[in-house]
């Protein structure tokens, strides 16, 4: 993500402020999203200590309402910032590429097909756009949670906090595995898509000849091959990608079992209170959600990589 953002800011340095603002909105939104857990913790604490009163409940509810409001406002401003910014970026890139193309010698156009250039300007740009809409938010939220939640949990119980975050390093190999699968697979997919788009353009523009030679539809083997190739590459990618993705998600979610086991042990040997036990159970069910969203977000991010690579290649003077 950082690599992608760095490249994007090289192309459009004027967007630095906008992306920073979008990230800030998302970080604050993530903090507001996490804050209600704090109120639940306080409620449970009071509940088990026998000091919970309706006055306190009203206060905690008010606190939560404030957090939800903050979450909503930040979510709104994040969307309002990231969508037009991403749209502007893609517009700028498309124009940059178009501007650059008209300065190139005709030799370039005899090597590159219309389909591959068209794929770059339309489909690949969309991949960058999608990466920014989808992956950017997930990455910001995940990192905010990964940094802030353990700090909060450390104050509650440091041993269970360690147990909670223990699964994260275990998930890293799966994250890298899936990242690797998508890097390779999506490059191939990008090439295959360019080929397919070239074939589509040729098919439509050459239809008169194809009709004349009765080579339309399945008879035009070159096209059918491209279609088949694109299907196979996609299938191969999704089948290879599903294994590390689901394994990574399983490992992360099994963190809940670890929390349950250790919390039970600590509860029975009397080293944690029931309220701490309960807050870790609640957190255990929710803390991994942003991390879990990060693993599929890799696919969106990797989708943008070949696009960035190709744009860079075209823009080489």
């Amino acid at each position, binding site marked *: 993500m950082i690599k992608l953002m760095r490249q994007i800011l090289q192309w459009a340095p004027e967007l630095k402020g906008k992306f920073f603002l979008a990230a800030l909105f998302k970080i604050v939104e993530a903090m507001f999203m996490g804050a209600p857990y704090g109120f639940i913790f306080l409620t*449970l604490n009071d509940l088990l200590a026998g000091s919970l009163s309706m006055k306190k409940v009203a206060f905690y509810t008010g606190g939560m309402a404030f957090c939800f409001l903050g979450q909503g406002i930040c979510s709104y401003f994040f969307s309002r910032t990231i969508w037009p910014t991403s749209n502007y970026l893609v517009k700028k890139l498309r124009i940059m590429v178009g501007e650059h193309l008209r300065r190139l010698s005709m030799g370039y156009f005899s090597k590159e097909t219309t389909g591959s250039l068209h794929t770059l300007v339309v489909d690949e740009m969309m991949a960058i756009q999608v990466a920014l809409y989808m992956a950017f938010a997930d990455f910001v939220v995940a990192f905010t949670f990964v940094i802030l939640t353990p700090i909060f949990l450390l104050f509650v119980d440091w041993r269970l906090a360690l147990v909670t975050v223990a699964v994260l390093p275990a998930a890293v190999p799966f994250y890298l595995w899936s990242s690797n699968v998508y890097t390779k697979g999506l490059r191939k997919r990008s090439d295959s898509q360019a080929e397919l788009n070239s074939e589509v353009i040729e098919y439509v523009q050459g239809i008169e000849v194809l009709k004349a030679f009765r080579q339309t539809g399945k008879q035009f083997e070159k096209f059918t091959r491209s279609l088949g190739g694109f299907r196979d590459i996609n299938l191969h990618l999704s089948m290879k990608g599903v294994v590390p993705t689901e394994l990574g998600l399983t490992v992360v979610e099994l963190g809940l079992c670890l929390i349950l086991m250790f919390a039970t042990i600590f509860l029975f040997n009397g080293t944690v209170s029931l309220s701490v036990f309960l807050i870790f159970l609640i957190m255990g069910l929710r803390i991994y959600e942003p991390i879990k969203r990060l693993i599929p977000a890799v696919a969106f991010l990797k989708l943008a990589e070949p696009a960035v690579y190709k744009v860079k290649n075209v823009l080489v003077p």
Partner: protein
Amino acid sequence: MEPKPKKQGLSGLIGLAAPQKGKLILSGLLAIIGQGCGIVPFFIIYKIVAEIAGKPQSEIEQRFIYILILVAFAAIVLKHVCLGLSTTLSHISSYNILYNLRIKITEKLGTLPLGYFNKKNTGELKKVMSEDVEQMEIFLAHNIPEVAGALVSTLLTAVILFIVDWRLALATIIAIPTGFIFQMMIMGRGKEVTNKWLSATKKMNAAMIEYIQGMSIIKAFNHTVESFSKYSNSIDDCLHLEDEWSKRWHLPTAIFSVSITANMLLLLPVGAAMYLAGIITLGKFVFFLLMGIGFGNPIWIIITFGRLMERNLVCQAHIETVLTAEDLSEALEPEKPGRGVSGKSIEFGYDKETKVIEGIDFSIPPGKFIALVGPSGAGKTTLARLIPRFWDVDAGSISLGETDIRNMKIDDLMDQFGLIFQNVYLFNDTVLANLRLGNPDASEAEIMDAAKKARCHEFIMKLPRGYDTVIGEKGARISGGEKQRLSIARALLKDSPILILDEVTAFIDPENEALIQDAINKLIRDKTLIVIAHRISTIIAADEIWALDKGRIAVRGTHEQLLSTSKLYKNMWETHVSAQGWALEREGKND
């Protein structure tokens, strides 16, 4: 007028998925089981809390708690196994559906009259075949299983909540409909913007193809600024509408994201009050706190589905528009083509207002050489393209022998014709593959023989990889004359009884013209020949010359007959002869 798509909406999308129904149902079932397993840990936590919080520590059975943890472990593993299998199955079926759909569109395009391609530009059709079809993948591979899983898990969770305590269950779910109502309101109002945005995307696609493919002309005429502004305006329009489209979602997305978790605002005070009043146990209260804050998570999937659905439906409508376009009809009981070509009272126009062909009658016996001449716009090319039924005539009929071409199978009809056009279209493939288009069953020896006859073997052998050289898009890596000779070789391989040549030497240099003439002479033996000629000198040997003017055959006869009887033809001949001696001269040079 564009035909209306037959199927619209969700049923149409599901209709596309019918051939892979089994896999998709299984995928949906696995997603449901997976999501169901996802609820188990919540329930286990409820049981653990009920056990621990409800009893003194000495009475708690520790073994029972560890067994529950193991069950949670197994449920998590099973959940991801099921979801992994579900994803795999949904992708297998969706990519196969997409492949079949693209093939279906490809075949459909092959049955459409050429007029269809005049109205639709390449970018538009590319968008349908590429982007719109790809959009279906999201619906088939992701939306179907995920939404099925999310719906079931939400319903299942709601049922469990109601079983545990109906009052707190109500407090948990009551905020959710607010988000949905907002969503529905936005969806209802947004179709117009979505349509506009996706139409602008089509235009952008077209502008980009035009810009890239027109680069040589743009550069030659120094039109880079004008054509670039057309390209950049299309980007501006598209992104402006995309901004408009996305603006509609900012507020509902924010409201929805809050409404699915804001149930805690009701759940916390209601639960606390009930607990403090002794109506519910601590276990129940904690269980609802756990479930309440995450209850809305699967609903995100449903809401995303709603947003994508709007786009899916527009894309699906684009696909349906192509698939339901009116194609060239084929007789239910096709007849075989006869010999010789004839036309009776043919009328044709590219649109209803302007007639390009007006009441032409003709008869061409087998083996005859007919030449079509006339000024630009006289209807020569149109007439030549009506004969192999690239368009259907508006009135009258064209027959091969006694058989109306509309009563033949298109394939049988096409077998009768060899066509060589002025603008040769070659594919970005090897020389061999381009030639093989003429006869897919031809051996390499036969292909080489045809290439030799068409005088292209020599230049092919000089290419870096001979017959295996890829010649680039539209044959960009070879010259105009070479392209034309390849197209003749292609026609030679097809070996059809009727040949239509449309200004094949129009823009060719003299050296290539001689080679092409030689190649054509080998091609035309024993064949019916219809030639559209720009250079009248090349068709003076024709059995009959038709001089076309304003969509009619003004005069017909041999070269000698027409020279003595037709003023129109005589003028054309004199213009042609004087052009032979034409040369560039600087003003004042001969003074």
